[in-house]
């Protein structure tokens, strides 16, 4: 029993409720939001250190013993991801006032922002498949509110698609859980894993596993279920896009990691083998999308898909290097995608357009912005010494250990193209003469740039200080490969 595990869920929830009372007082809600977010970050840092030093924290809510009650399981993977979520959220809450209009902030932006954080933390921490669905709904409903914030025509059009695809996959999710409950008679993940293991994952269980995979793949935007993502992620405000890109797809991929390293692991020839090919196709199609457009927001949005492919690849290998590569890449990608979405948000703001053909020579007025984008592109593509490099090298090690040479070549080629697609923004947007017919004044961007610098610093530390983090990541991945540890710590056998 330790109530620490629930705090990352209820602190944001109650902060969101409190901010709803003061929604019309903009400066007060800004201050309170920053304060609450920093408190939450402090609590989460403490939680993460406790988990890493003293092992998994289990909370059986309402004193109902697992597997009968609802459990929260803060194992090292969940704790590390909740910490990453909160680092991003802190950056976002400082970026938001500069990026949003006051009217949008008054329309409950901060309330829904905190509800998303609460839902994401809950999805990472829950040890119960049905509650995973519940927390998915919490974060989705908050995201529906944020995606239409502002209510422009294009937003309504794209959010309709977004809502429909998510409602459909939620229906599928509940159905799959009902099937699984019908077969194994429980929704506690540890107990499901135990029972699936007992019957050696026979036919119908694998089918249910694949059904769950489809649900999570839709949320995570894997090939071929990614088509809804790019356009609906570029219509909301940059800070909302950054949150979505950093958190929502990653919750989907986290669920895949959890479910396919804990429950459905006995028929890797049917599931994990297919993951590798889906990963390869996601990389290829995602990067083609990024190369084919001149809209800077769309370039970054398409870059989400190959990143998900990289993470998926490591799950497919299902060996220690592959798994730790996936987790490292997951953390790295959450941070850098937030930074990139914020950066293109600033670029679109200063250039007055998000069309690459209409901008040039921004480096003369905004040198800092240009070099930040340059660094961010390097981080994203995985140039040493930045964090993408460490993740990728471990993923490639995993590939060669399993003898999967083709996927390794695809991954390397994709990395180069990713670098090109982001460099294109730098070359076409920042190089060249200053635009002479420019009626745009030089705009102050310092407040918007600071959170980006913070995120890039985190990313650089993650890369240069890899030696500090790699042991933790490796112990997470060896835990994931020995699901018995998880089962024992939850069911205490």
């Amino acid at each position, binding site marked *: 029993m330790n109530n620490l595990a629930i705090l990352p869920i209820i602190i944001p929830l109650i902060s969101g409720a409190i901010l709803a*009372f003061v929604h019309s007082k903009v400066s007060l809600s800004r201050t309170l939001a920053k304060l609450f977010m920093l408190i939450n970050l402090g609590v989460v840092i403490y939680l993460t250190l406790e988990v890493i030093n003293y092992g998994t924290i289990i909370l059986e809510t309402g004193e109902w013993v697992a597997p009968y009650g609802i459990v929260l399981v803060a194992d090292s993977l969940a704790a590390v991801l909740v910490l990453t979520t909160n680092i991003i959220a802190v950056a976002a809450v400082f970026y938001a006032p500069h990026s949003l209009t006051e009217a949008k902030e008054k329309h409950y932006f901060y309330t829904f922002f905190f509800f998303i954080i609460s839902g994401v933390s809950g999805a990472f921490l829950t040890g119960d498949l049905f509650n995973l669905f519940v927390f998915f709904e919490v974060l989705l409903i908050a995201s529906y509110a944020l995606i239409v914030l502002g209510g422009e025509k294009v937003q309504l059009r794209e959010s309709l698609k977004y809502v429909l695809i998510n409602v459909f996959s939620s229906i599928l999710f509940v159905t799959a859980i009902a099937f699984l409950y019908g077969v194994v008679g429980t929704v506690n993940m540890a107990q499901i894993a135990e029972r699936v293991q007992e019957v050696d994952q026979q036919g119908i269980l694998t089918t249910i596993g694949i059904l769950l995979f489809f649900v999570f793949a839709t949320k995570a935007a894997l090939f071929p279920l990614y088509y809804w993502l790019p356009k609906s992620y570029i219509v909301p405000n940059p800070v909302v896009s950054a949150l979505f890109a950093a958190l929502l797809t990653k919750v989907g991929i986290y669920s895949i990691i959890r479910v396919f390293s804990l429950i459905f692991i006995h028929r890797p020839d049917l599931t994990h083998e297919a993951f590798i090919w889906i990963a390869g196709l996601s990389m290829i199609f995602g990067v083609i999308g990024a190369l084919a457009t001149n809209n800077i927001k769309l370039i970054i949005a398409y870059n989400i898909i190959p990143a998900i492919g990289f993470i998926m690849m490591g799950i497919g290998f299902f060996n220690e290097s592959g798994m730790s590569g996936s987790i490292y890449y997951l953390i790295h990608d959450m941070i850098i995608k937030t930074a990139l979405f914020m950066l293109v948000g600033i670029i679109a703001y200063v250039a007055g357009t998000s069309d690459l053909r209409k901008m040039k020579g921004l480096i003369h007025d905004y040198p800092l912005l240009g070099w930040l984008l340059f660094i961010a592109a390097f981080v994203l593509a995985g140039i040493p010494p930045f964090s993408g490099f460490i993740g990728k090298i471990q993923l490639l090690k995993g590939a060669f250990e399993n003898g999967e040479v083709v996927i390794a070549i695809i991954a390397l080629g994709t990395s180069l193209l990713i670098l090109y697609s982001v460099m294109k923004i730098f070359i076409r947007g920042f190089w060249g003469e200053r635009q002479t017919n420019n009626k745009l004044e030089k705009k102050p961007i310092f407040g918007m740039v600071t959170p980006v610098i913070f995120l890039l610093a985190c990313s650089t530390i993650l890369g240069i200080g890899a030696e500090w983090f790699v042991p933790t990541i490796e112990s997470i991945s060896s835990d994931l490969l020995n699901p018995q540890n998880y089962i024992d710590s939850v069911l205490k056998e």
Partner: protein
Amino acid sequence: MGFMKREERFNIMYKPNNLILRTTTSLISFILLGFAIYLLLAGHNSPGGGFVGGLVTSASIILLYMAYGKNSVDEILPINYRLLIPIGLVIAILTGAGSFLFGVPFLTHTFGTVELPLYGEIELATAMLFDLGVYFTVLGSTITIILSIANDKKIVD
């Protein structure tokens, strides 16, 4: 008829059911409100609870809106329903978090019995407080949703 304002005549002419609706509403609405309170209190150990109690309450208030129109109901029930949502959330979360003070897991509930004069013994449970939070949240969100759809033409603040 000649003494009536044009608007009122319009209402009577185009709403032939108005009288029946209004008469029954004034009866049914209060039965519903009483039943909603019963459901809320019955909640934690027999059928009922904050969710269904909130729904029945909002049904009764919506019925009032349908029978008497927005302006007059706004006057007799000047409640900001949108504010009820965070109030309910705060009540529910704090009830759950109250368990921290006693060093037991989140959402652990407890109960005790109280002797009341004339009535006898009644049972009080902390689950009831949680239900109250749910009640307010459901009431607030249901009415906010229905009223915003019903007031489609006007932009709500």
